[in-house]
């Protein structure tokens, strides 16, 4: 909690990424969250194309601290035949509340038809979907506009807000055009002025704080929101108000 504002981190990982010393140690994660007043972190596991393996890992992780973590479901069109069944299981049986997708692990642009069963599922239930977005063709955030138009009841979140200048500008344009597109802030680039750009150009009500924990510590990623040259009211929305509204938590 920061000044009575509940803080929600919209982007976190379960599992180990030892190459980068990214380990989902709950004590370390909670320690970092507690140091800066993060109440809840959203977590998902993107390392298993069947969805099932990673979603079970996420559900077990969340179950250890259900008041501090919420889980998102992951599926992949690399195993397209089971996507909807796994989403149904993950949401209805495991209690996961939104969806994470990672187009760079696939050979398809994020607006291609193979992804559409996922979007139809989210559209029927009014769920949020967070994508890795960036400069690679499959995950370019400009493609989200196409999805947002076709599936207006789903909410599409541009993870990393495109990460670098050109895709970030495309993400902002898409958010300006469609009310069901949001921009999430975590990025190792931490370019000066980016948080200000997202808030000023897309609107404070469309920006979500995220950290990429446990790949990255959540404290510096929150720090770039706190030290940005934006109003306190904008910080409240970015740090938690928007996420609470989007996830219904």
């Amino acid at each position: 909690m920061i000044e009575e504002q509940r803080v929600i981190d919209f982007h976190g990982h379960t599992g180990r990424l030892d190459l980068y010393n990214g380990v989902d140690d709950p004590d370390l994660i909670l320690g970092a969250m507690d140091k800066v007043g993060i109440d809840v972190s959203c977590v998902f596991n993107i390392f298993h194309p069947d969805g099932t393996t990673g979603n079970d890992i996420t559900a077990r992780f969340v179950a250890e601290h259900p008041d501090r973590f919420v889980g998102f479901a992951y599926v992949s069109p690399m195993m397209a035949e089971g996507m909807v069944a796994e989403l149904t299981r993950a949401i209805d049986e495991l209690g996961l509340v939104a969806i994470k997708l990672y187009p760079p692990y696939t050979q398809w642009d994020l607006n291609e038809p193979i992804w559409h069963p996922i979007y139809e599922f989210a559209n029927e239930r009014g769920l949020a979907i967070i994508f890795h977005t960036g400069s690679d063709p499959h995950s370019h955030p400009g493609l989200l506009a196409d999805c947002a138009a076709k599936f207006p009841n789903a909410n599409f979140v541009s993870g990393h807000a495109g990460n670098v200048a050109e895709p970030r500008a495309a993400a902002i344009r898409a958010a300006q055009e469609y009310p069901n597109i949001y921009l999430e802030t975590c990025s190792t680039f931490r370019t000066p002025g980016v948080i200000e750009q997202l808030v000023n150009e897309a609107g404070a009500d469309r920006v979500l704080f995220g950290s990429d924990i446990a790949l990255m510590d959540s404290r510096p990623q929150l720090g770039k929101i706190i030290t940005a040259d934006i109003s306190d009211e904008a910080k409240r929305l970015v740090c938690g108000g928007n996420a609470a509204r989007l996830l219904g938590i």
Partner: protein
Amino acid sequence: MSTQFTFRPRVPVFDANVRVGDLHYQPSPCRNREQLLAEMDRHGVDRALIYHAQTEEVSPIDGNGFLEEWLDSSRLFPQWSITPTPDSLAQVQGLHEEGRVHSVRLHNARKVGLPFRPWACGTMLSWLSEHRIPLWIPLPDADADELAMTLSAFPELVTVLVGAHYSHALWVRPLMTAVPNAYLELSRIEPLGEVEALCEEFGAERFVYGSWYDRLAMGTMLFYLHHTDISESELELICAGNLHRILQGEGRHD
């Protein structure tokens, strides 16, 4: 310390890593010294060690010249760039004779195939070591094996390793162990819990705060350092004390 929506550092801050001026592909958000000082004021930064962007990819010699207009005797201190060529070394030696060299920064010559090896850099490294001038080395341009082997051959040389990222996570500990006179600048240290873990393993006296503005936003890592388990005295060392000591030529651990 409870988190607020407004953050100010509670210890003196001397930023070890600030870039000024334009890259050929990226104009700087600060157009002059006054704008940079205003940005530092906004984040509560007292002093900064600055180098010019032109030294990164174009010319350390020209870039050092462009740095002059940014200097401020009370808050903005020069970090001259250097590369192992006779012209570059002569320029820095001339500045040294004027009493103006307290640290230098390695220009990336590896991208044109000149490795960081004693046969290529030995003259420069010997001179720096002899004159107790610390060398800043940007890790994004570096090779871990070259650093460990070459710096081991110059044990008196004090170095500051700049910009370690999570992609360097497997390097940092063995390199800090292999090179005892190396300090680590913290602008990109983002692995989970890493600041506390590194301080516990190596001691806070091995670390310096740098923002790497304007490559990165200025206040982020300061906020992070103020929300860790390190002690107040360790925070003071990292945010200013260690850098002050290094620039005084007192950086060796022997």
